[in-house]
């Protein structure tokens, strides 16, 4: 019984090559590891080593032959008669699948990325009903976030907070105020200024069974750590066939602050929302910030939680209940209306609400939707509202290109085309790095006036 030596594939893309030179001849004894031949691919000349021990029988393809297809028998070998010889696959079987049989029939309709994300179970999930007479407490977003972390740390020993200035300094933006005092240095950890490193340490700790909350002083600095957020945290569960989870929350302020210019003023919502395997949350008010951060910390999936510095100090009603947890992946109608739908998230919701107020004075009744979660995106709520209003404007404090706005526009065109009485309009920041000068900064950012103009336009009243 002989072993067939076949033309090897020497790169991921190689389909054929030239058998440049034989370094053995018929009758030679070879050991595993000996070089048998030199093979030229389109990229390089490679040495081809023997895998089995034995004697070269016949050389089938002479040296100098060009265009030898991968899998062609190029020589035969008389084996030692051990098990490996028997294991050599037969020629027909081993002919490598030249092409993976024409793209496997489109696995589920891949419409736009996010359409797949609207999971079927979602419609049934809603914010928890509050008992009548539940007391509402005026709370800043900053405090709501802190309360969410503190409550979850009391509830679960595995939860810890790590980041720059989160402990002794009490948080660069005071979001972690008081946590060190209550939970101690073991669970509230100041790091060196080393985003790439501590994002990786956090992801590793999550893989090792803990529940890290990693604070970035701002998401601008998370650019140094984005490899761990995407390659380490988001892809692990999939790559491991569901074995290895990475339940971690990356949180911090995102988007433009005030007069800090281009490197400190960027909305990363669309970046992270583009990545399968991540949950991306960007709340506006304090109740949502609290309920969703608690849900994020409890999630088995990696979460990017985008806050906004300019919103930290704003106060909102937060229901006084023991355990206020909100569903991830569910938008909220923050103002009902019938004439036009304004879709937004994070600080943009405030802008949209201001615009709605102005529009009301002009006889246009706007509905405002806060997406709250950017991935998975709650397209059902948006489409339902569109059915009612037939007009839609997306409001986004961020760049226009490849944005959440463009995604919503695409989804609405694909799935809500018949409900549209006007094209979808986008109100976004200008497509420039954010300038420092006060007048230029103002010119670059969204405001309520622009939303009003756009809303009137789609209502054909502008």
């Amino acid at each position: 019984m002989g072993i067939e030596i076949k033309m090897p594939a020497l790169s991921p893309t190689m389909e054929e090559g030239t058998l440049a030179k034989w370094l053995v001849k018929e009758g030679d004894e070879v050991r595993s590891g000996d070089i048998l031949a030199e093979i030229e691919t389109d990229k390089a000349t490679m040495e081809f080593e023997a895998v089995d021990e034995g004697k070269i029988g016949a050389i089938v393809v002479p040296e100098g032959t060009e265009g030898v297809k991968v899998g062609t028998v190029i020589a035969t070998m008389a084996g030692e008669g051990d098990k490996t010889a028997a294991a050599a696959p037969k020629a027909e079987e081993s002919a490598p699948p030249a092409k993976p049989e024409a793209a496997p029939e489109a696995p589920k309709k891949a419409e736009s990325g996010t359409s797949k994300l609207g999971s079927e179970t979602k419609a049934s999930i809603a914010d928890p009903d509050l008992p009548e007479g539940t007391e509402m407490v005026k709370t800043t977003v900053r405090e709501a976030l802190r309360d969410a972390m503190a409550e979850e740390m009391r509830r679960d020993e595995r939860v810890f907070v790590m980041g720059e200035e989160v402990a002794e300094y009490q948080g660069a933006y005071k979001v972690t105020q008081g946590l060190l005092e209550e939970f101690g240095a073991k669970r509230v950890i100041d790091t060196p200024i080393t985003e790439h490193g501590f994002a990786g340490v956090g992801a590793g700790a999550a893989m090792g069974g803990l529940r890290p909350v990693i604070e970035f002083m701002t998401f601008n600095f998370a650019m140094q750590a984005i490899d761990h957020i995407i390659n380490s945290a988001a892809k692990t569960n999939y790559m491991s066939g569901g074995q290895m989870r990475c339940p971690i929350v990356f949180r911090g302020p995102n988007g433009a602050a005030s007069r800090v210019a281009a490197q400190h003023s960027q909305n990363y919502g669309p970046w992270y929302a583009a990545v399968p395997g991540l949950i991306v949350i960007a709340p506006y008010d304090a109740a949502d910030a609290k309920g969703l951060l608690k849900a994020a910390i409890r999630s088995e999936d990696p979460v990017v939680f985008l806050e906004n510095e300019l919103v930290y100090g704003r106060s909102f009603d937060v229901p006084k209940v023991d355990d206020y947890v909100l569903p991830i992946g569910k938008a909220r109608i923050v103002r009902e209306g019938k004439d036009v739908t304004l879709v937004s998230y994070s600080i943009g919701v405030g802008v949209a609400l201001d615009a709605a107020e102005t529009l009301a004075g002009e006889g246009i009744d706007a509905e405002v939707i806060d997406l709250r979660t950017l991935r998975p995106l709650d397209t059902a709520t948006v489409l339902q509202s569109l059915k009612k209003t037939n007009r839609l404007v997306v409001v986004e404090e961020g760049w226009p290109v490849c944005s959440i706005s463009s995604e919503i526009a695409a989804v609405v065109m694909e799935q809500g085309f018949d409900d549209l009485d006007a094209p979808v309009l986008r109100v976004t920041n200008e497509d420039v790095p954010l300038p420092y000068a006060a007048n230029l900064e103002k010119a670059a950012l969204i405001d309520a006036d622009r939303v009003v103009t756009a809303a009137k336009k789609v209502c054909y009243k502008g």
Partner: protein
Amino acid sequence: MEFYRQMVLIRRFEEKAGQLYGLGLIGGFCHLYIGQEAVAVGIQSALEPGKDSVITGYRDHGHMLAYGIDPKLIMAELTGREAGISRGKGGSMHMFSVEHKFFGGHGIVGAQVSLGTGLGFAHKYRGDGGVCVAYFGDGAANQGQVYESFNMAELWKLPIIFVIENNQYAMGTSVNRSSAEDQLYRRGESFRIPGLQVDGMDVLAVRGATEEALKWVQDGNGPILLEMKTYRYRGHSMSDPAKYRSREEVQAMREKSDPIEGAKKYLAEMGVSEDELKKIDQDIRKIVSDAADFAETSPEPELSELYTDVLVEQY
């Protein structure tokens, strides 16, 4: 004897993987561990299974075999089958076994060092007495995040052993063409992390150094660095023609320092007969060919698997 068995298993497994790659049954990138067997085998043997954790880069087959993970599951992952350890979704570079506390299998050079530091952090946080071993190569040793991790690991006295597998070539670039300080065991000095240089071709030397390192870490001294001087016989990956070194260099290394031949000598001195070793070789060949058969014949994942395990929960 067990060391010898494991090293032969890795050698034969990798040769078989190379063969299957040549047949087009394994795709993409495939990095073989041939030549470096003594490192994984010597280190893994000193660890306590179920307690200590391990993480490495993309040249990961050897570590998994040394950890006693079923060769069939590994080979089936290489051929992209449903029965593979990552259900065919990870491939050569992305394999994990949480059950064995083997945390991958990472494709981004250097990432495993930060992640491993996080595993060390988790050991300390829980107080479970475990130690993390984070393997990386001489190439990864030049990544910035390695030093960010060194800093935090020493600052917080984390239980972690950093193992640099110095096989002397980062893909095609030799250590002295890429490293200002080419004595890699000294790379922890500015963080006050002690380092040892070890003959990574000698399985007993590796085992001994690991025991020392474990003791240092378990005594609460914080991290330690082991530089394993080793050598890979094959190219960086299957598609590497390895023109950056001479055939003579590789051949000389194989003849003088081969870890398996070295172990054979030890065993001969201990009075183990040639026949006993032959028996091991035969058993291993059977295991490897069974694994290859399994990997070739078991089915590919169902198309419906495409959308599973993207997220853990439903939202």
